[in-house]
């Protein structure tokens, strides 16, 4: 009960945020929400299924580029976002079929490889992706359902609510998903592949489902980006961008539902605080990573919930 109350208070704060916060805070919050979605998907693979992907930014980029392309052709926000998600889902289903043939280090290498393939397309396929200039002039198109409603989201505050609604829905669905038999099955596979196979679970199919859902969430985060920034550039597909959900998840906690969300929040807060003192904030992040991996593999959430740190 206490948990539900806390979640409701948090949602209330998020809804009321534009009343007392400035543009910068709103902008930051949107980015925190995007990284939360991105990291949640990533952690379904890593924390729940035991597969470390280093190419997740590829699906984020597919979502972002697909949404941008759609918005440039037909300015309707909903079509752009949903189109981006569907496209990212299809690509991750396809690449998932290939990637889940391996586990452990070979899985990490294969995902890194496919992610970088997508990056090289975004960077070099000028006709389609705009090359290293990226796609520019993407409109923050109005939310439109023909004959029903048409809401302008041109102001940052209005777009914030769009992102918030999508995020809350996606996080709620994710919560139901991991508490369902599907979530438990994935954890079973993570803990013992052989045992899961012996009780009749199709390990491959479940890994593929996990991979595809992870891709869908990355795609959603990606598709929400172009209307915010009005531009998409190749670095969103680069492997160093894949490292962001890895870091956020590690910060927040791998084996907890809220870990990636808390981690995404911490990621931006740490960045924001350190950047005020020094431009070398990555060195601090690097030290934090070392400390977390050596001593607190359960992340911040498990430290505070007293579940013990080592996983």
């Amino acid at each position, binding site marked *: 009960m206490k948990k539900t109350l806390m979640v409701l208070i948090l949602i209330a704060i998020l809804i009321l945020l534009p009343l007392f916060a400035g543009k910068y805070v709103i902008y930051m919050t949107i980015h925190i929400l995007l990284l939360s979605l991105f990291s949640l998907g990533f952690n379904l693979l890593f924390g729940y299924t035991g597969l*470390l992907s280093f190419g997740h930014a590829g699906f984020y980029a597919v979502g972002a580029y697909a949404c941008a392309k759609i918005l440039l052709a037909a300015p309707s926000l909903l079509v752009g976002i949903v189109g981006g998600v569907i496209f990212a889902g299809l690509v991750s289903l396809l690449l998932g079929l290939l990637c889940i043939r391996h586990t452990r*280090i070979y899985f990490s290498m294969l995902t890194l*490889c496919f992610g970088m*393939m997508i990056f090289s397309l975004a960077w070099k396929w000028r006709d389609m992706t705009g090359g290293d200039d990226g796609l520019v002039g993407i409109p923050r198109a109005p939310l439109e359902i023909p004959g029903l409603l048409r809401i302008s989201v041109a102001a940052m505050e209005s777009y914030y609510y769009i992102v918030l609604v999508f995020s809350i829905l996606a996080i709620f669905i994710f919560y139901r998903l991991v508490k369902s038999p599907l979530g438990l099955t994935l954890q079973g596979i993570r803990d013992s592949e052989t045992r899961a196979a012996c009780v009749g679970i199709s390990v491959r199919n479940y890994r593929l489902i996990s991979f595809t859902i992870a891709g869908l969430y990355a795609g959603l985060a990606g598709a929400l980006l172009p209307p915010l920034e009005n531009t998409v550039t190749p670095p969103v597909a680069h492997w160093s961008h894949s490292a962001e959900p890895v870091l956020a998840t590690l910060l927040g906690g791998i084996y907890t539902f809220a870990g990636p969300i808390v981690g995404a929040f911490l990621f931006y807060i740490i960045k924001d605080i350190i950047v005020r003192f020094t431009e*070398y904030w990555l060195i601090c992040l690097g030290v934090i*990573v070392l400390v977390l*991996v050596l001593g607190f593999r359960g992340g911040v959430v498990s430290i505070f919930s007293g579940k013990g740190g080592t996983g």
Partner: protein
Amino acid sequence: METLAFQGLVGLSLAMYLWLLSAGLTIVFGVLGVLNFAHGSLFMLGAYFAFTFYGLWGINFWLAIILSLSTVGIVGYLMERFFLRHIYHLDHAYQLLLTFGFILIFDDAVKMVWGGVAKIPAMPGFFEGTVPVFGRLFPIYNIFIIGSGLLVALLLSMLFEKTWWGKIVRASASDREMASAIGVNIPTLFTGVFIFGAMLAALGGALGTPVRVVAPGIGAAMIIQAFIITVIGGLGNLKGAFVGAMIVGILSAYGILLFPVFELFLIFVIMAVVLMVKPQGLFGG
């Protein structure tokens, strides 16, 4: 025709840097079982130290390379002794994550010390100039690089095939417990191998200093190349790393000439195909 032959030579010299870079990565993986994400950063550190000793302080070129190797060796010692050693028992994922932390640290440390601008030091006098090859001018320095790469390949194969230390290392790579049982001090050996791998990376970086740009971020770029090569050749396979470096180096050289748009894409396609069809690499057992 001559253009193609010449471009092959260009690819060969590129392949030698990649070989020096990948050799250390694959040796460390073969023995320690750790895929060092920060290996490219050690390459970068080698380049920066060589640049400092040779380009800034004016120390003799050869001495500068030796000093750079020793400094990176010390960095490698610290990394292994105080960090990696504590996580050998964990899943591969944590070793990737820990060494990824080092990429962030090294990248920013380099920016703090040397600034964010790329450095291009002068060429050592005795390597200046070019020789005509296939009707074009080929830098003498590149010939020196090709020679050095081949020499390192020869020395490494002799080290692992002929010497006592090499045999101990191979024995420990194939069965850690057994080697330990017959009296090999595994922790010390691991430290030694890691330092050795770090110094090989530094050698690649240091030798590249006079001709390649020394800039922050080259570590992150190089590690991807090293991953491609070691995966194609088979993780932990030294001969494979040599052939992998040749493939990637020569393919990049021709790729830039023949199909510049999809050169990078094609290399990743090769990596993916190898991973899916023969994950133990072209030379894996």
